[in-house]
């Protein structure tokens, strides 16, 4: 199949590689052409030109505005993609933005799935991402063989936007858990107890979690180099709170964690790992 890929960052690049290795013909576009270096792919001049060549196009980019621009802007995908082709947006953006983009593409007969992923750079490299899809079930079935190249777990959550809602829920739980682990480490250290031992003791019990495992370990080793850059979680928390506001629901914990992320950003740790939430607590 002819597959397009836009967004060749830490997530997109390994994902594009998996698609290609599965025997598909790869077309790419990037704002900085250099980011496609070393990929055996056809480089296209614009998203529209890429869209013209492909049956399925993946986007993995940062913000709602970027996705809107690539999909609907001048020389955007909408100008090139044929009716019946599919855009799979793996970016994390606002559910409402995803619904709007899907509606606009739908007017031209172009299908869209919002298919944000969880699992980080390592998950992208290992092709073990969790993929949360929103859109029509039939469309998902058409592109499922491609998604199976990227992840182990592909769940159809609901109509357009539902994938992004699931991703928002994922981010809420994960970052709140990171904050909880950071506070536990802080309490242990302030009480003169060895953090490594505490983490070890907790691993077998009810508080065991992947976040305790991975992020707790980073905190114990004081390794704050990014796995996932904290600025991306900060961005996601903005989306989550905006969604909560639109629904008129209170999310007191998320709101407070968002403030800790704001403090993290103010310290200039946005490009470090979110385990830096521990350092925010230490700065009291």
């Amino acid at each position: 199949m002819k597959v397009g890929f836009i967004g060749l960052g830490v997530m997109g690049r390994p994902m594009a590689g998996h698609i290609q290795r599965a025997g598909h013909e790869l077309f790419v576009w990037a704002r900085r052409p250099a980011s496609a270096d070393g990929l055996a792919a056809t480089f296209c001049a614009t998203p529209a030109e890429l869209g013209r060549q492909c049956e399925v196009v993946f986007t993995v980019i940062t913000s709602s505005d970027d996705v809107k621009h690539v999909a609907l802007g001048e020389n955007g995908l909408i100008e090139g993609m044929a009716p019946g082709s599919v855009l799979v947006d793996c970016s994390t953006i606002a559910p409402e933005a995803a619904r709007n983009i899907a509606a606009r593409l739908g007017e031209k007969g172009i299908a869209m799935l919002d298919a944000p992923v969880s699992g980080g750079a390592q998950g992208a490299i290992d092709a073990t991402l969790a993929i949360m899809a929103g859109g029509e079930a039939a469309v998902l079935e058409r592109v499922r063989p491609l998604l199976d190249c990227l992840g182990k777990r592909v769940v159809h959550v609901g109509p357009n936007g539902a994938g992004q809602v699931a991703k928002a829920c994922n981010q809420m739980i994960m970052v709140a858990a990171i904050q909880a682990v950071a506070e536990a480490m802080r309490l242990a250290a302030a009480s003169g107890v060895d953090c490594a031992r505490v983490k070890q003791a907790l691993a077998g019990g009810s508080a065991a979690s992947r976040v305790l495992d991975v992020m707790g370990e980073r905190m114990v080793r004081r390794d704050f180099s990014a796995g996932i850059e904290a600025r991306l979680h900060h961005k996601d928390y903005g989306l989550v709170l905006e969604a909560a506001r639109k629904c008129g629901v209170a999310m007191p914990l998320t709101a407070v964690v968002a403030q800790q992320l704001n403090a993290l950003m103010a310290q200039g740790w946005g490009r470090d790992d979110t385990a830096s939430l521990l350092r925010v607590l230490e700065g009291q």
Partner: protein
Amino acid sequence: MKIGFIGLGIMGRPMALNLIKGGHSVTVWARRTESMQPLLKAGALAAASPADAARGSELVISMVADAPDVAEVMRGVAAGAAPGLVAVDMSTIAPAAARRIGEDLAAAGVDFLDAPVSGGEVGAIAGTLSIMVGGSEAAFARAKPAFECMGKNVVHVGAAGAGQVTKAANQIVTGMGVLAVAEAYAFAAKNGVDRSKVREALMGGFAYSKILENHGQRMLDRNFKPGFKSWMHEKDLNIVMQTAHELGLCLPGSAATAQMFNAMVGSGLGEEDSIAVLKLLERLSGQE
């Protein structure tokens, strides 16, 4: 002075009336023409558009709902502006949005002030609003006679955007203040203590505030009529939290308060006064 006035809602209408009472020649425009009627009866002239309201005016004032409305209205004002016009927005919008609108107007040769108000409908009618102004000294001096018809406490806070920053700060203090009084009442009641006695005892001490006095009394009376609608307070707290997000600013108290106001809007209390946060607290703690 010849003044154009745009936006004649709950706040805008009495503010424009006070300008007329102050002897100014006022030309009005509103999206809904019927809301212009009471002003025309009081001697105002009708404009056909925001540009028309700006034409021939020395000062144009807008009092509308949200940043996109202000931007749209001010684009019209710029089109109709004579050289030397001062445009004043008295709506509550984000400081960043106010700065952008100010820059756009400056490019069109129009001087801009952001001048949000505090004091509610009562203050607007009585002409006793607090007015917090951002922008140039020269523009402030030009607009000051108009401000003095509408408000008592008029403060030039700083450069463009500073008025909105002050208003956001005002909403932080009032939002948390209302929640604080409501929580104190919920605490007293759950402990079986008479809230009105608690209020009376607190009035003389360090916990005294205008909010304890006024909002506190209305909570005791269970008078939830607005005043200041809680959906508007929610909107203003959202400006605070968005700005905090953009700046990297840790505001845990405001964050918790904003969530309570989210819940008020979501549970149908949006049209009631912001003191209805007391109802939400009572619901959460099984005190209904």
